[in-house]
């Protein structure tokens, strides 16, 4: 069993093996230094943690339930399947865990404005929500393609008082929304906090986002021990940037539990229409850290595709690369079609409509469950609910 990557690499802050680091213009270094110092201080401050925990309970609705999906489990070779119900958290996904933590941190830093990037809109909604909670103005960068396919979340953000800034450069999706948010921050960091939504970006973001999302795995570990009297055989989570996955995985890192991250194979890895950065990418530098990215031979970042806007991103959190290289976790991909099948399967077997992102994890659960021994236990992170996806889902599933 691999040891905690932090422990084995503690002499280089912000690095997970050869991945992570800080690849940014000099302009941003003071902002990142301030953020790193403040996060480390607050994370060890009992007053801050107590305030965060109280809001996680009363506002976010934590702990989220751990639910045994019996009828879905029958479809998965009669495996015992538990769903960690992040879809039941306030705003409908795991994203609020991180946005809330970062917003409280921004308040301590006396920042007067929040900015964020968003793909599926779940992180944008979470950031708009905490901005409303703290009475701060909020601007969310979103690709115009994502605005069209996740329109419900655009409406929600605006209702919450945030401004959604359309990004029509480059990919017109999450990659360019992220680039635009970073550029905004280059000029605004003195009074603005940039709430990154995944475990990507320059140090300290990957570490900080993991810390705020680890509540998922801490709860799930306790809940499954109470429920089953033992740890699960495997964990499954979808991976775009990878924040819901790292939040589930990290508290299990020293346990004898298999961990699987599921990337988006889009229309197939044989096409150029996918977003499987770990499975099909190469080492590179994007958005401030060294990780695996989808790129052409000239080092230009490649266009990506996934039916799930939240997975449609050419990079991945650096810690996931490290977990794969050390053999602690494995990563694979499922296609748009497989994800849609799982989306419909969960809706019809359990009465739960999952997000298209989370449906990728469910698709592999169906496959993995059939390979396990009959009483094998799988714990799946149901990272978000699928209300935002019903129009697209109806087009695809309804047509079958």
């Amino acid at each position, binding site marked *: 069993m691999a040891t905690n990557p932090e422990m084995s690499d503690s002499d280089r802050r912000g690095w997970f093996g050869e991945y992570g*680091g*800080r*690849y*940014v*213009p*000099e*302009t941003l*270094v*003071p*902002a990142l230094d301030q953020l790193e110092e403040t996060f480390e201080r607050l994370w060890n401050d009992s007053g801050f943690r107590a305030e965060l925990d109280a809001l996680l309970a009363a506002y976010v609705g934590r702990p989220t339930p751990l639910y045994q999906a019996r009828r879905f489990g029958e479809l998965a070779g009669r495996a015992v399947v538990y769903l960690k119900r992040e879809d039941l958290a306030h705003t409908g996904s795991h994203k609020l865990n991180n946005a809330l933590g970062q917003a409280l941190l921004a308040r301590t830093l006396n920042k007067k404005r929040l900015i964020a990037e968003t793909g599926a809109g779940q992180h944008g909604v979470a950031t708009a929500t905490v901005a409303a909670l703290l009475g701060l103005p909020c601007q969310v960068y979103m690709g115009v393609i994502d605005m069209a396919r996740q329109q419900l979340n655009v409406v929600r953000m605006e209702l919450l008082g945030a401004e959604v800034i359309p990004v029509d*450069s*480059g990919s017109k999706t999450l*990659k*360019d929304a992220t*680039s635009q948010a*970073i*550029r905004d921050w*280059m*000029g*605004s*960091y*003195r009074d603005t906090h940039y709430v990154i939504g995944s475990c990507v970006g320059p140090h300290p973001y990957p570490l900080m986002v993991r810390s705020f999302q680890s509540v998922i795995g801490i709860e799930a570990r306790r809940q499954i021990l109470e429920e089953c009297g033992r740890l699960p055989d495997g964990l499954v989570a979808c991976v775009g940037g990878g924040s819901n996955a790292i939040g589930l995985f990290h508290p299990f890192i020293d346990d004898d539990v298999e961990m699987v991250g599921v990337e988006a194979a889009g229309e197939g890895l044989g096409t150029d229409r996918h977003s499987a950065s770990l499975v099909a990418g*190469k*080492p*590179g*530098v*994007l*958005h*401030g850290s060294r990780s695996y*990215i989808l*790129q052409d*031979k*000239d*080092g*230009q*970042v490649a266009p990506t595709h996934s039916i799930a806007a939240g997975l449609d991103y050419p990079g991945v959190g650096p810690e996931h690369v490290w977990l794969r290289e050390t053999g602690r976790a494995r990563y694979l991909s499922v296609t748009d079609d497989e994800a849609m099948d799982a989306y419909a399967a969960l809706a019809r077997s359990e009465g739960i409509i999952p997000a298209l992102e989370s449906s990728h994890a469910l698709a592999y659960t169906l496959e993995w469950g059939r390979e396990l021994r009959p009483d094998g236990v799988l714990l799946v992170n149901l990272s978000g609910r699928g209300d935002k996806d019903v129009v697209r889902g109806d087009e695809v599933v309804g047509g079958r």
Partner: protein
Amino acid sequence: MKGKSIGEAFERCRDEGRAALIAYLAAGDPDIETTVALAGAVSEAGADVLELGIPFSDPLADGPIIQAAYTRALAGGASVKRVLEGLPRIADGSGLPIVLMTALNPVLAYGSEEFCCDAAAAGASGILVPDLLPEDGGSLRATAARAGLDTVYLGAPDTSDERLAGAAQGSTGFFYLISRHGVTGPEGGVGAGLAEQVERAKRYCSVPVAVGFGVTTADDAERIAAVADGVIVGSAFVREAAEAADREGAVEAVKRRAEELMRGIHRAATERREAKS
């Protein structure tokens, strides 16, 4: 071919009692032929150093003008390889020392060693990689030095004294001082507190200090030239070229803009001389 010396270009300017003009162009926007022509134009107008941007899909420090230029260049087939293939003609045609500005990822994809060797062989004199901080840049800097290339680092208004000292002392050729917060482009103009910023950088610097970001007019250039060793102008040229009807028009417009900026630089030099006498 061997690139012209950046250090000697700054020395000539110092002998003339003026600041240098460092003109930035986006390589291959919209094609390499245009870049060759524009490099000739800024040289004729009196520029001293050429900063040549290698197009990248996701430049983090650049505003909309240079982003759009990179998008046009990539659509026209620009790549590291094609830029390096065109470099000898750009260097020859302009007669200027060339600093290659590039994001880190294309260099990694090309291979750091190969990139430095091929760039030097094609006539480059230095490299500037904005997303590679000095603390991580030692290896590339050494590789560049072995190939005979200078390495330019950056400093910004909020950079701590400690970091500024490291970046300034690590720079060869010149040191790039960012005038203000934010990305490249005319918005916001040149930052306040310019003289103090330059003075602070000069305390740590053995190479010339050049200032960029937000420089558009002769007045901007004059303000910088009054206190710094070099004036860096990018978006203003790129926008002139992009708004022109054709290549000839672009050459004319860029040349006029460079001449205007040189007038600002010369005004500052005259004022300095008069203040002394």
